[in-house]
Structure formats: C-alpha cells, structure tokens
C-alpha cells in the first residue's frame, strides 16, 4: 500500500492543468485551507461525487482513564465527520456508478 501526499496531488494538478509546480502546490493548499475555514466556522462542506464533511456538536460525558480507572469529565466539543458519497463507496468496490446517484 502506497501513501499519497500533497506532493503527488500537486504533481497531478501540474500534469492536468499545466500550471507551474509551485503554483499547483499553492492552489492545492488554497483548496485545503478554504475547506478547513468553512468547517472551522461550523459550515458543512459538500463535494458532489465525493462526500460531505460536517461538524457535529458532542455533549459532555463522563469518561474514564483506561489505565487508572479514574473518572474524568469529557467536555462538550465539536468534532468533524466525513460521510462518503455513494459514488465514492461504489468506486472503492469497483462497482459501476448508477446514473442519478448524486
């Protein structure tokens, strides 16, 4: 299993669009930053045929340190969740994507 990083994504933009390598990398960063900023402000980010990133509010609950067994309160917090689209799920299993799914 290989790991793809920013470098390979920037290279793909470079190959597809024909911008300089530097500008390709900067645009990738710009895209990630805009998605992050939207999520930071609590707005969901919906990418069709890929999936939806959304922010969920979690209430306070009592947790436990698994090592010591001491109870500790877990404060209310906001967590990020990603819901893959039907298209992405189908692609992972080599299935044809039915027209009309998103």
């Amino acid at each position, binding site marked *: 299993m290989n790991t793809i990083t920013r470098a390979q994504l920037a290279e793909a933009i470079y190959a597809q669009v024909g911008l300089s390598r530097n500008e390709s990398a900067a645009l*990738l960063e710009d895209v990630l930053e805009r998605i992050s900023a939207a999520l930071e402000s609590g707005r969901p980010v919906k990418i069709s045929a*890929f999936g939806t990133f959304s922010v969920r509010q979690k209430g306070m609950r009592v947790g436990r340190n698994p090592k010591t067994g001491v109870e500790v309160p877990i404060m209310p917090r906001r967590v*990020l969740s990603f819901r893959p689209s039907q298209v992405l799920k189908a692609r992972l299993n080599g299935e044809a994507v039915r027209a009309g799914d998103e």
Partner: protein
Amino acid sequence: MTKSELIAQLAAANPHLRQPDVELIVGTIFDEITNALARGDRVELRGFGAFSAKQRDPRTGRNPRTGEAVEVSGKSVPYFKPGKELRERVNGGPLQAPKRSPRGTVTPS
C-alpha cells in the same frame, strides 16, 4: 459550502486562471484521492487529515422488510481521519488540559 461554491471562491481569488482550469484543479484533487483509495492506497495530508479504505468482513444481514437472512459480501469503505490541526480548529483552538484548582483551595465563583 459546496464544490461549486469552492470553485467560485477559488476563481475569484485567482483572477488569472480561467474558470474551466479552476474546475479542473478542484476536480483533479478529488479524483486523485478517489483513485488512490480505489487502488487501495491511502492519502495523507498533514494538518488536514488522512483518507483510507477500511475492509468490512462479509456478514449475514437481514432484509428489514421481510426479516429474511441475506449474505452481505465483504467490502471496502472510505474513511477520513481528521488531522490534529484541523481537529483543533474545528473545536475552537488548541485543546487545553482540564483546568483544576490547586489542592485544598476553593475556586472563587
């Protein structure tokens, strides 16, 4: 924010790029991530998060309408683990250790 709003924002911030190029840039990013996952590779974007495919074992499911048992084959499902930096931003800044008052003192209210 939707994909088209993201494209519009990016186009406005980069007036030297043509709209079709901006669409191609955004499309390429998500296509590359999708292709990597379909090949079984993972995608790690430090500070943002990591995309990977998790394997689900075959199981015996039930048709919820008829209650009939059906074999569900194993499959691969996409998974996203947010990076530390993004997790903290979404939660409103770096995580803090729970505040506690020094032993034996009363916290003024």
